[in-house]
């Protein structure tokens, strides 16, 4: 059953990923990407990463892709990119070669690891455990292992928002 669900989700994800790369209209690409994100969220949930699955739907499919679609609609793009082979052929061949080499290296290096995942405890991947890792355990009073990276990410997001506003405004 698990294998069946994984097969369906992953094949849909790959098909929609091909759609992202090949669609001519950017809106179609963006919608394919949203579909890929939903399939990946399902796979995350299957792998026991509940927090990551929820964040994937809320932040990626919800926030980031809405931003993308807003910008695409704002720009009034025309359908372009007629694929003339003389112009795009070398690029497509280059992309194929790179991807085949990448995938081949991965498959060769991993072909020994063919057994299923082992069992994990019921606490694995819960939001409680992620909170302990981030902010520390209140009972023992330890500081979280990843408190500093978390604060660094908040600083990064602030800088990103300020940068976007500075770039987007015509006159400060």
């Amino acid at each position, binding site marked *: 059953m698990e294998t069946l669900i994984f097969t369906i989700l992953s094949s849909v994800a790959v098909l929609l990923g091909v759609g992202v790369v090949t669609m001519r209209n950017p809106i179609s690409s963006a919608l394919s990407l949203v579909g890929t*994100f939903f399939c990946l969220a399902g796979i995350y949930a299957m792998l026991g990463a509940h*927090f990551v699955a929820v964040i994937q739907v809320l932040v990626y499919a919800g926030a980031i892709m809405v931003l*993308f679609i807003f910008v695409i609609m704002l720009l009034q793009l025309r359908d372009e990119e007629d694929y003339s082979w003389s112009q795009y052929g070398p690029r497509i061949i280059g992309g194929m070669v790179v991807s085949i080499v990448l995938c081949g290296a991965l498959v060769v290096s991993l072909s020994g690891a063919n057994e299923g995942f082992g069992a994990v405890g019921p606490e694995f991947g819960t939001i409680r455990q992620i909170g302990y890792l981030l902010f520390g355990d209140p009972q023992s009073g330890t500081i979280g292992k990843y408190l500093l990276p978390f604060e660094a990410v908040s600083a990064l997001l602030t800088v990103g928002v300020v940068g976007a506003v500075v770039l987007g405004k015509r006159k400060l």
Partner: protein
Amino acid sequence: MEAVGLFPVLTLSGILFSLGVIGVLTRKNILIVFMSVELMLNAVNLSFVAFARETGQTDGHLFAAIVMAVAAAEAAVGLALVILLYRNRLTVHLDELDLMKG
């Protein structure tokens, strides 16, 4: 029928990453190149989550969440740049944006 293991998940991750690479190399619309980069970031996230499941430690989930935050900041700044570019040059076609070519 065997259970899902590390190998199929990482294969999916590799396929999605390769699709992103193909998109970045072949497409000329800057927005689709951006979306291909997002696809690559998601492939990396998938391998983080798969290794977290393999080792039984939750740390990988946090790395995935941090990658998502970086992707959000990147999308905000990048799309602001795209709008600025479109306002000044009236195009998002990468071949026409050769202002800094020597």
